[in-house]
C-alpha cells in the first residue's frame, strides 16, 4: 500500500481500522522521537512532551528515545525521513510552524507538505512583541505610530533570520503601520536568548519572539509586552497580557508544535499513532505537562491536521510572495 494520496488513504485506513482491526496493530517496538534541532530548543521540548506524556499515560510499552537531527529548522530531518526512512513506523519527527514556513519558501529542498504523513499537534505557542520595562512605547499603537513617523527609528531584535517567523511578525507589524517592511531596522541574533539580552542591554528597542520563552522574564517584570499575537487572551497567569486583536490590529501568529511520520508508513501504524495522540491529548495529566512547558492547547490530528498544515503552508507561501522573500 503506497499512499499517493495520504489524506484519502488515511481516512480510508482509519475507517478500516475502526471497523475491527484496531486491536491487531501493535505499538512500535522502538519508538523514537526525532527533534530536528540541537538539544534544548523548542523541538526538544516538543519531543520531551510526547515522551513524558506517553510514558506517564502508559500508552506505549517501550520508552521513547529522543534523538537530534539539527539542520535548517527541520530540513535535514525532513529529507532524511522522506528519502531514507520513509517506511519506519518507529520514527516520529517533531515539526513547528517554523518548519512549515521554511517548507513554504522552498527551503526543504525538493519536497512539499504532501511528502510526509502529519500525525498530530500537541500544543501551540504565540508570537509576542515586547519592549524593555522602561521603554517609552507602552502599547502596540505606540509602536505603530513610531514606525509611521520614522520606520528606521526602531530597531527590532529577534532570534531568527530575515524570512523566519520572528521576522514575519515584525514585517506584519510594519504592514499594520502601513510602512514598507524594507525600510525598518531588523537585527537577527543567534537565538532568542541573545536577542533578549540585547533588548535588556538597550542595544535594540523591540523584541520579537515567542511568549513561552519570555514568560519567566515577563513575571520578573524585566520586559513590557506590547502585544501577544493570539486571537484571545491566554489562559492562566499570562492572561494579563493584551492581545494585538483587542488593540484593534488583525495580527495573530501561533507557533504550532506537532509530529509527522514518513510517507510510506503503513496506514495501520499511522492510525495507531493518530489514535494514541488522540488519547494522549484528551488526558488531563497531559494538559499539566503541556502547561509546564509553556504551551497552549492546540489539538488536531490525522486528516484535520493534514488539512491545517496544507492551509498554513499555502498561507505562508502567499505571505512570502507578498514580502518579496520568494519570486
Amino acid at each position, binding site marked *: 500500500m503506497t499512499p499517493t494520496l495520504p489524506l484519502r488513504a488515511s481516512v480510508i485506513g482509519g475507517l478500516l481500522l475502526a471497523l475491527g482491526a484496531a486491536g491487531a496493530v501493535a505499538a512500535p517496538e522502538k519508538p523514537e522521537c526525532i527533534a530536528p534541532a*540541537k*538539544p*534544548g*530548543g523548542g523541538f*526538544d*521540548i516538543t519531543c*520531551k512532551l510526547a515522551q513524558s506524556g506517553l510514558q506517564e499515560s502508559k500508552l506505549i510499552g517501550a520508552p521513547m528515545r529522543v*534523538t*537530534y*537531527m*539539527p*539542520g*535548517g529548522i527541520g*530540513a*535535514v530531518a*525532513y*529529507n*532524511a525521513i522522506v528519502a531514507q526512512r520513509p517506511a519506519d513506523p518507529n520514527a516520529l519527527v517533531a515539526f513547528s510552524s517554523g518548519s512549515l514556513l521554511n517548507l513554504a519558501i522552498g*527551503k*526543504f*529542498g525538493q519536497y512539499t507538505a504532501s511528502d510526509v504523513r502529519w500525525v498530530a499537534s500537541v500544543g501551540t505557542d504565540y508570537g509576542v512583541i515586547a519592549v524593555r520595562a522602561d521603554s517609552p512605547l507602552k502599547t502596540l499603537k505606540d509602536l505603530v505610530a513610531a514606525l509611521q513617523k520614522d520606520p*528606521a527609528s526602531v*530597531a527590532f531584535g529577534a532570534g531568527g*533570520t*530575515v*524570512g*523566519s517567523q520572528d*521576522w514575519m511578525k515584525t514585517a506584519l507589524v510594519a504592514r499594520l503601520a502601513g510602512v514598507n517592511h524594507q525600510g525598518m*531596522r*531588523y*537585527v*537577527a*541574533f*543567534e537565538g532568542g*536568548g*541573545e536577542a*533578549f*539580552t*540585547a533588548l*535588556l*542591554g*538597550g*542595544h*535594540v528597542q523591540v523584541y520579537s519572539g515567542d511568549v513561552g520563552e519570555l514568560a*519567566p*522574564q515577563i*513575571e*520578573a517584570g*524585566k520586559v513590557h509586552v506590547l502585544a501577544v499575537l493570539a486571537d484571545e487572551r491566554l489562559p492562566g497567569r499570562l492572561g494579563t497580557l493584551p492581545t494585538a486583536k483587542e488593540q484593534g490590529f488583525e495580527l495573530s501568529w501561533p507557533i504550532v508544535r506537532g509530529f509527522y511520520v514518513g510517507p510510506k508508513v503503513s496506514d495501520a501504524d499511522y492510525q495507531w499513532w493518530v489514535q494514541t495522540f488522540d488519547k494522549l491529548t484528551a488526558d488531563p495529566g497531559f494538559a499539566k505537562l503541556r502547561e*509546564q*512547558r509553556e504551551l497552549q492547547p492546540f489539538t488536531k490530528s490525522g486528516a484535520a491536521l493534514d488539512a491545517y498544515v496544507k492551509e498554513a503552508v499555502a498561507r505562508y507561501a502567499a505571505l512570502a510572495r507578498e514580502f518579496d522573500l520568494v519570486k
Partner: protein
Amino acid sequence: MDTLNYLLQGFGVAFTPLNLALAFAGAFIGTIVGLLPGLGPINGVAILMPIAFAMGLPPESALILLAAVYMGCEYGGRISSILINVPGDAGAIMTAIDGYPMARKGLAGVALSISAWSSFVGGVVATIGLVLFAPLLANWALAFGPAEYFALMVFAIACLGGMVSDRPVKTLLAVLIGLSLACVGVDSNSGVYRFTFNDVHLADGVQFIVVVIGFFSISEILLMLEESSIGQSIIKTTGRKLFNRQEMKETNPSTLASSIGGFFIGVLPGAGATISSAIAYMVTKRVYDKDGSFGKGDIRGVSAPEAANNASATGSFVPMLCLGVPGSGTTTVMMGALALYNITPGPMLFQNQPEIVWGLIASLFVGNVVLLVLNIPLVGFFAKMLTVPNATLVPGIAAASAVGVYSVHATTFDLVLSVAFGVLGYLLRKLQFPMSSLILGFALGDMIEQNLRRALSLSNGEVGILWHSPVSLTLWIGAVAMLVGPPLLRRLRRGRAALAVG
C-alpha cells in the same frame, strides 16, 4: 550575612553521603563523556537526568549531579587533546598545542595532572567570582552589544598575532580557511544560504565537530602512517605521572590570571570557552615565551588555557542565573533539565529560591574538589591508553571520532565531509600550516562577521559605533597594545641591556 548562611546551608546539603556519591558518579561520567570528541555535557545530562528522575532525587541532589557532570565534561575535554591531539570540545583546542607535544615527550602524565590542577584552580576562582559578583556581573554582560562583541573578537585576533610561526602568510591563510568555512550555511542576518550548493545538509553550516575530527583526528591517523612507529604504540614510556613543585610554581601566575580573565569572558553569553582559552594561551605565550618553547610542549601552554576554559564554563552560569539567558549551549541543556524540576533560572531565582542558587554554587565547589581527587589517580589510567598498540588504538580513535560526528546530525554526509577534511588537513599539515589557527578562525568566524554586521545595522552604517562605548574602546586599545606592545618591550629591554653594557 545572608549569603554566607545560604552558602553554608548549601554545603550542608552537598556533604550528605548520597549527594557526595552522586557528585562522584557525575564527575566520573562527565569526565568520560567529555573526553570523547563530539560528546559533551548534553550527553552526560541526557544519560543521568532520567536516572535522577527514576530515583526520585530531590531537586538539590539533581542539581549536584548536573553540576558535577557539567564540570566533569570540562575536565574531560583536555584528555583527548593531550593524548591523541583531538580536542574533546572547542575549549580544549589550545590545550592540544602544547599538551600533545608534552605527551610525545613522554610527559603525558605531567600534562594531564597539571591540567587537572589548573582546571581546578579555574573552577574554584570562578565559583568564588560567582559568589561575590554574580548580580553585578549581569550588568557587565548586558553592556555587550554587537559592537562590543566585535571589539572583543578583534582583541582575540590581535592576540592570535602571537601565533605567527616562521611563515606568517601560512598562519594567515590557515585562519582565512577557517573563517571561510564558517561562512557556509544560512547567514543568520539575511537568511541567505551561502555555499550550501542547495544541499540541506549544509543549511546549518559545517559542524564544529566535523572540522575538528577532519583536521585533527583523521589527518593525524594519516600522518601516523608515515612514522616508523607502525605496529607499535605512539609513546612507549609514559614517565612520571605528577607535576613537581617547580612546575607548579612556574604555572601559578599564569593559571591564576587565566582563571580570572576566563571567568569574565565566560560571563558574556555566547563568548565562552573558545575565546577565553585562546586569549589565555596567547597572552601567556606573549608574556612567558622567551625561548620559543611554546608549541613544543611548554607546561604553561597547557595550564593557562585549561584554567581559562573551566573558569569560563563556570562564568557562563552568571547570565543563566541572573538573566535567565543561557550563556552557552551547555547551559541551555542545563536550563532544560532545571525546568523539569520546575526551576526557572532567571532574575527571580535569587529572590524566590535562594537555596537553589546557593545549593548550585556549593555543588560547584564540591564538584571541583571531587574532580581533582578523581582526576589525579585517573592520570595513570589515561596515560596507559597510549600504550595500546596502534593496530587497535587507531581504529578505536576512528570509530569514536565517527560516533562524535554522527551524534550531531545523524547523517552520512557529515561523516564523508569529515574524511574529506581529513585528507585536506593531511596535505595542509604536511605543508606546515598550523591547524589550531584554522580551527580558531572557524570557531570565531561566525561571531566576527555577524557581530560586525549587526553593529553596522544598528548604527545604520555609521562605523563609529564600533568604538564608541567605553568597553569597546578599551578592547581596541588592548588589541593595539597586544600587537605593538611585545615588540616595543623587547626593543626597550634590548636598549636597556645595551645601556647597561655600555
